[in-house]
């Protein structure tokens, strides 16, 4: 497994390079938008990757509540974190694309707004993980992930309806996409998927390592020679959990 990592890394780098070449040189220039349309090859694959990762997070969260397997919990947290990174890319590249094309940075349309809400929900998920201690975080975070997943269709519907009531400047593009564009898009998506996998992999290894260190420190806290006051006094976090059941 460990040998596979550098191989995958090299492969991903090659793919990403090839994908950039495809996106900037090979793909045909769009008629109305011009070259700026090439942002599409970064924006859309990032969105798909983010959604996929959030879906993985949901599956892992449900699985954790059923099986209580700490490895599944690590997978849930890793997919959420990398998902937020890709979602950030979507939210940053979106306005950069919108500005030259629509003349505005942002519009409260369905897709933009629900992606923003999705991002907010998963940022709150990561915050919850950061602010709760590691004994309780998995179950709490899993519950929040399920709530988030239930929320998304409602968010989409409500905003969709809200927008149809209040007409917006018509958003261009649309229509059918040139098959050559499709090909470039898929190549880019594959490259970004590999890249996401790579990041998840490293983050997962980091998380496993963090847990190992934590375990070692826990043992140390119990056996160390400098064991003066109780763990509760030295670690206010534990004391708080005791008092705040």
């Amino acid at each position, binding site marked *: 497994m460990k040998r596979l990592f550098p191989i995958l890394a090299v492969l991903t780098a090659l793919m990403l390079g090839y994908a*950039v070449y495809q996106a900037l040189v090979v793909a045909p220039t769009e008629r109305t*938008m*011009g*070259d*700026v349309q*090439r*942002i599409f090859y*970064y*924006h859309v694959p*990032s969105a798909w990757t983010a959604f996929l990762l959030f879906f993985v997070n949901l599956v892992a969260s449900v699985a954790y509540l059923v099986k209580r397997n700490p490895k599944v919990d690590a997978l849930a947290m890793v997919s959420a974190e*990398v998902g937020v*990174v890709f979602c*950030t*890319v979507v939210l*940053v*590249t979106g306005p*950069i*694309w919108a*500005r*030259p094309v629509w003349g505005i940075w942002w519009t409260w349309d369905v897709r933009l707004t629900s992606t923003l809400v999705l991002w907010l929900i998963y940022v709150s998920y990561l915050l919850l993980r950061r602010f709760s201690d590691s004994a309780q975080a998995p179950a709490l975070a899993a519950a929040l992930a399920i709530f988030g997943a239930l929320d998304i269709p409602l968010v989409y519907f409500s905003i969709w309806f809200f927008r149809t009531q209040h007409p917006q400047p018509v958003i261009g593009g649309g229509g059918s996409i040139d098959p050559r564009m499709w090909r470039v898009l898929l190549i880019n998506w594959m490259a970004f998927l590999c*890249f996401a996998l790579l*990041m998840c992999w*490293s*983050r997962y290894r*980091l998380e496993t*390592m*963090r847990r190992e*260190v934590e375990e*070692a*420190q826990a043992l*140390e806290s119990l056996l*160390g020679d400098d064991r003066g006051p109780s763990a509760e006094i030295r670690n206010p976090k534990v004391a708080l959990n005791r008092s705040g059941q």
Partner: protein
Amino acid sequence: MNSIKFLYSAYAATWTIHLLYIGSLVRRYRRLKQELSELKQK
């Protein structure tokens, strides 16, 4: 065309975000390594 600078800035932004994240991973990894070596010394 002027819009080309938007294209480049979008690509640059994407990679800045990814590199920042990878940087944070490396930083966290280093800190863990250090904690691990401190633990081993004890």
